[in-house]
């Protein structure tokens, strides 16, 4: 039983990192990535491949996972400068589908079967097959990410980001380099998703493209919307709820997607600020008062 709870806590942690990273893009850039699972997958595959094939140590795999995912984020972040928010969402979605297809078709990624026998982390001589140890490692990463996001949001840069989100034109007039900020956030966010991917791969020890498709991207999005777009704590809670609740309601597994779909619509209509996003969410996402139903 304890094993099971440890497992749930570890899985939740991956999603907390993913939700936080997507929330940076949504809540602080005012944009949506619908291909976020692709960065997660890129991280997982990078880390798995170099530890399996080159016998590289876990830490190197982890660092490279972050860097490679961030590099893809950078590449995808550049178009944000030229295209509209809603088109960008579709571009990220297309990117997600392309990555999915590449993982399915390449020989080195094992096609639909994916990769197996991914080594567990080799750190400090600890046995990471023991879930308690793995949870410690993962919690350490979650805390690091939380700290990073918290510091970022409450720094000078965070205020610039908020200005961009709420009044992009004004921000530009004030001399804030909005383009650089947006690309930086995209890159950072992708890197964080890559981190989650690496942690996931070395925990589960076998991966295939199925875990990194559109479905996962939408799940992460639902977590962010549920917790509150723009709320750090909201992402933690949203990810926690949507990892643990489905486990508790296994009997209703068939209805899971139905519930996610309904949840997304219902939240946006009745509680666009999310469960915890009160007062923190971008004004952009809340209906202007008095405009309702015109």
């Amino acid at each position, binding site marked *: 039983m304890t094993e099971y709870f440890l497992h749930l806590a570890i899985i939740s942690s991956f999603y907390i990192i993913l939700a936080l990273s997507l929330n940076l893009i949504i809540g602080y850039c005012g944009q949506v990535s619908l291909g976020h699972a692709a960065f997660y997958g890129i991280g997982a595959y990078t880390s798995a491949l170099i530890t399996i094939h080159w016998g590289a140590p876990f830490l190197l795999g982890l660092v490279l996972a972050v860097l490679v995912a961030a590099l893809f984020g950078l590449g995808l972040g550049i178009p944000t400068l030229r295209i509209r928010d809603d088109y960008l969402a579709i571009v990220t979605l297309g990117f997600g589908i392309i990555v999915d297809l590449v993982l399915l078709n390449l020989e080195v990624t094992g096609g639909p079967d994916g990769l197996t026998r991914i080594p567990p982390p080799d750190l400090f001589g600890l046995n990471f097959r023991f879930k308690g140890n793995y949870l410690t490692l993962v919690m350490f990463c979650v805390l690091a990410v939380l700290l990073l996001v918290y510091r970022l949001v409450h720094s000078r840069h965070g205020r610039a980001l908020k200005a961009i989100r709420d009044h992009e034109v004004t921000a530009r007039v004030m001399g804030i380099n909005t383009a650089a900020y947006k690309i930086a956030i995209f890159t950072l966010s992708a890197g964080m998703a890559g981190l989650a991917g690496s942690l996931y791969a070395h925990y589960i020890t076998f991966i295939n493209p199925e875990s990194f498709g559109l479905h996962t991207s939408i799940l992460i999005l639902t977590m962010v919307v549920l917790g509150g777009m723009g709320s750090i704590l909201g992402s933690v809670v949203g990810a926690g709820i949507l990892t643990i609740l489905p486990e508790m309601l296994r009997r209703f597994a068939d209805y899971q997607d139905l519930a996610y779909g309904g949840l997304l619509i219902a939240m946006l209509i009745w509680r666009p600020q999310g469960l915890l996003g009160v007062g923190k969410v971008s004004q952009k996402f809340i209906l*202007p*008062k008095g405009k309702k139903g015109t």
Partner: protein
Amino acid sequence: MLTLKSVHSYYGSLHVLKGVSLHVRQGEIVTLLGANGAGKTTTLKTISGLLRPRKGMIEFLGEDISRLGAEQIVQRGIAHVPEGRRVFSTLSVTANLELGAFARSDHKAVKKDLEDLQERFPILRERARQPAGTLSGGEQQVLAMARALMARPKLLLLDEPSMGLAPRLVKQVFEIIARLRETGATILLIEQNARVALKVADRGYVMETGSISLDGTAAELMDHNEVKRAYLGKGYQEVWE
């Protein structure tokens, strides 16, 4: 015909109209003067139903229309020519005119009105199939006014018909307004160019920060010191004439 009683309107949380009261009688041309941001356009939008008043009453032909939507109010006989003309630029000139009669179901009469208007304003026939966006500013103003007339309105609301037009075209537009007056039309007119507006109008109101500060006949307002200083001054004249 039209009566506003202490009407209050908001843009979101911005209080724009703070108790506007005015009336327009059958067959009159009434002009609404005032500086930018005084609430003239908002007044017209509130009358035509694009904005819903929070407080106050708007009565048209004995009916309270303050709770009706724009698409219902046009059916009651109020046509609004919005600021900046707002023709449907990708649709043809004729399609624009036909849309003006969207609320009408007497299709034969609509057809006849279309031909009459083309008779009166030959440009509408010459450019019939051209996209409205390719017309010049003055031509677009003529089209916008003709489009409103296609609804056979009992009351016409005109918002800055001379805006952005060359003086020669301003003259043309006001000739049209004068001609409409001869046919017995009732018009509520907003115009930057107070001198021209008062020349064509019977009565006028002056708006200041969301309410009416002054009213009277056109002649009275023309002579009023305040109006002279603020709206008919020398500097003003130079800009506009």
